[in-house]
């Protein structure tokens, strides 16, 4: 019963995410493609350059401490 529900849900999600009005694959001219790519990378680079939050350094620091022990199990 719940499995059925899950399957149905999965199908629904699949359908909606694939449900795209464009049925053919349009092709962009290379100039536009370049512009899109440049903007995307510029936006992304800005995100990449943000400092790494301390929580990640701390998380990975715990690795080193556990190194002599049994490893991390929670």
């Amino acid at each position, binding site marked *: 019963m719940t499995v059925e529900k899950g399957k149905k*849900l999965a199908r629904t999600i699949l359908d909606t995410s694939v449900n795209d009005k464009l049925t053919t*694959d349009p092709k962009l001219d290379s*100039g536009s493609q370049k512009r899109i790519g440049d903007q995307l990378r510029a936006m992304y680079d800005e995100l990449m350059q943000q400092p790494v939050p301390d929580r990640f350094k701390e998380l990975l620091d715990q690795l080193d401490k556990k190194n002599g022990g049994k490893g991390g199990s929670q």
Partner: protein
Amino acid sequence: MTPEPEPELREALLAAVPSLRAFAISLSGQVDRADDLVQDTLLRALANLHRFEPGTNLNAWLFTILRNLFHSEYRKRRREVEDPDGSYAGRLKVQPEQGSHLDFEDFRSALANLPSDQREALLLVGASGFSYEEAAHICGCAVGTIKSRVNRARFRLASLLNVEDIEDLGPDSMTRAALQG
């Protein structure tokens, strides 16, 4: 002998964090949620280190984990909320980063308008530097599917951003076209 995490591994994981964050932020549209995703990804990676095949692409492996976490969480949320699409898209649009340039606002909201499978394919191939093959592996689908999604994503972004009808590119566009082959 259980394999203990090496210092090099710690460095490698730490080095992967900026690109994981950029992907997670662009995917989810929320910095807080993205950071939670990255943290969960690291924890899961550490717990499953024995499954990682040395010599293969660590980043691709981490991206796969993050992507799967993102989707399972998204599915969970869809189950909980009746009409999540509107609010989700809305949240994606409103995420001015501290100190970020306004120039990216249009781009971000256009990106938020893409179906999530297209957005993710474009981010992997167009920004994260993965090959089509790697992206297909990360998303668990065929290479052709990734190519198609990336094409559609670019096309839709171009129409949302009105990139197409720009005609003042001049000789530069020809140079670009030539360079792009």
